[in-house]
């Protein structure tokens, strides 16, 4: 709580810098006393572990980004852990639970959508045979192109960038009724 160079200052300035010094000291002691309490009562967080996790993640990202030791052969699998290989479209055949017709596994969802009369396109062409539906929806790629976001149904999975902390926002994951 010492203020230096008081000689050069006017009494008014001396006084205000004195007050400022007192206030600052008081705030420093406030923080020190809070920290002292947290430390003594063992309420501090395990920062070492948090730092270690951060370090491991940063390290992992560097390792993975390095192409020379990529742990994965860029998405192309040769065999799975059982030594098996799989076609891009699953070729198991089973009977549809809804209509009883045999369906190839990889085309089951588009078939079922039609078969149950669901989805947007289904309603339009509900009378078409399921075989036709299969062909229309068939795709060669094993990767699923689909949108994880629908405009139509619920808004609860969307985060609204601007109001991010309201009550409603956090009821996102809650179940509707008790």
């Amino acid at each position: 709580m010492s203020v230096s160079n008081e000689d050069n200052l006017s009494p008014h300035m001396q006084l205000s810098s004195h007050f400022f010094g007192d206030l600052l000291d008081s705030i420093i002691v406030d923080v020190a006393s809070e920290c002292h309490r947290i430390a003594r009562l063992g309420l501090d967080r395990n920062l070492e572990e948090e730092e270690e996790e951060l370090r491991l993640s940063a390290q992992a990202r560097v390792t993975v980004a390095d192409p020379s030791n990529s742990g994965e052969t860029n998405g192309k699998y040769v065999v799975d852990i059982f030594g098996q290989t799989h076609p891009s479209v699953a070729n198991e055949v089973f009977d549809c639970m809804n209509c009883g017709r045999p369906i190839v596994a990889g085309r089951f969802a588009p078939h079922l959508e039609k078969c149950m009369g669901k989805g947007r396109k289904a309603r339009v062409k509900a009378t078409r045979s399921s075989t036709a539906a299969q062909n229309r929806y068939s795709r060669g790629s094993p990767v699923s192109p689909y949108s994880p976001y629908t405009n139509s149904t619920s808004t609860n999975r969307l985060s609204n960038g601007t109001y991010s902390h309201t009550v409603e926002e956090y009821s996102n994951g809650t179940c509707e009724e008790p």
Partner: protein
Amino acid sequence: MSFKIQLPCYQPLPLPQISVHSPPCHQKANHHHHINGHDPIPPPCPHLADFRSRNGTKPFHLFQNCLRIKPPHGRASIRRDPSEVPRCGACGVSSAPRIYACVTCAAISCHAPPEPSHAAAHAAAMAPGHEISVDVDRAELFCCACRDYVYDRDFDAAVVLSSKANYIHSNVNSDNLRKKRRIVEYRPWLPDIHERVLVNNNSSVLSFVEDRPWGLRGLNNLGNTCFMNSVLQALLHTPPLRNYFLSDKHNRYYCQQQKKSGNDNGVVGGKRSNGGDGNGGKGLRLCLACDMDAMFSAVFSGELVPYSPAKFLYSWWQHAANLASYEQQDAHEFFISMLDGIHEKVEKDRHKPHSLGHGDCCIAHRVFSGILRSDVMCTACGFTSTTYDPCVDISLDLEPYQGSSAKSVSLKTHSCNGEADCKNSSQNGGISTLIGCLDRFTRPERLGSDQKFFCQQCQVRQESLKQMSIRKLPLVSCFHIKRFEHSSIRKMSRKVDRYLQFPFSLDMAPYLSSSILRSRFGNRVFPFDGDETDASNEMSSEFELFAVVTHTGKLDAGHYVTYLRLSNQWYKCDDSWITRVNENIVRSAQGYMMFYVQKMLYYKAGEKQVAQ
């Protein structure tokens, strides 16, 4: 993942109530977890102990009359009357940052090192018995002989009580929530000779492959169903869920039989069950738990050829007719919807109102449901309105990295004065972290002047602070990262492709209501709201990551993949492909949903067994 419960333990034997302490993977210094009511207060210094033995706790209680607290939740100070200006008896200074009043004789002295300490001089001159004093500006005990702050439970209680007396709290009746837990050592169960005969005669033996963990089986993509496969893989390896189904707690044959007979008697009225979606699968009743049971059987059968979860998809579309579309699906939405589906069926069949919040209604909620606490506090008078909401997951906003966590801690402790500015320059290359998201989730937030709430005490609309915390941790915590952003202004959505660091081991203690409340009251030692500390003491707050659902690609064309940890090895489940991966791949993956399970499980005595 250490999960001590071995499957054979799940026998309908009258097991003693057990407390399972599965050994945490790496024993860390458990320095701030006070499980089973450990006293967080360090042993008192000899002078404080001496003072207490001579005077009891009465002097501390008397302080209640001189405690002044600036609302709401401001710093506590000691003044005999509100206008008192304490002055050092030795030098007359009143502005020193540390002014202490002797607890024994109320003499006021300053302590401003490196100046000679008048407080210490007072203690020495009057000794013995005048060592303990109180910091008049902070209401903290100080030992003038040890020259250190000391902490005392009764003193803290006095501070909190006078602080609480200022405002009415929405009180929860804590007494009937208190349950005593009896701890019995965990004993592994092995079948005796008779039981072994019984088991052998009534079961088909599975072929056991030693080098692979059980239950790894690819799931065929049925046409854009990786959103479903990714979540199913996580659920199939959610330890409590897996143990439930594998121990036959929900037997699909039995369940269907019951329902059929129930149906005939007209007891189970199909409220919305099949929703007119056709014949309901050849006379079978729609029950997602039955489909889960079938899937668990298939996946844990030892079969290696990928499984097609077709029946499950069919049932789920019947359950959630609005989501029955082959094109656009969100893994998180599926997760919520299917848990809801399991819950709804069980609920309907039981004819019993269960409180969802306590999570003992159905297996989905017993595993995933927790309780969030939301406090809205009037900034004028400190009146706090508290609400509790059950949740099955926590959705978090993707936020920029907020600097080191040390910073967030200090932000928290100052929270009483409103939210400090959190726009700290981001260190560490601006990496977002799950911990940072949780810090933001639980920090107090000033509600805008356009969202004033009606304060029951002031009887007018007031500005307020809102703060979330976790009242009850779920057994399995699912964190959902809001990566899909929607702008209502630009009428467009986009996916936020930013990396979010998530730890393999997570301590939820700082986000518990007990911790949040304690820090709101200056970290005083006090059983806040009675049941709050109880709830946290009974639960372990240490969690361990076991599944990560990731999303790659864009909003309209992407792919979900799940990483699973089984027997300390990570596996990548990409539809029908299951491959081994290095943990670095997982750490650097772009997490969309992270599943954590409690490291330690407690079984409550007196809790009823699940009747199935």
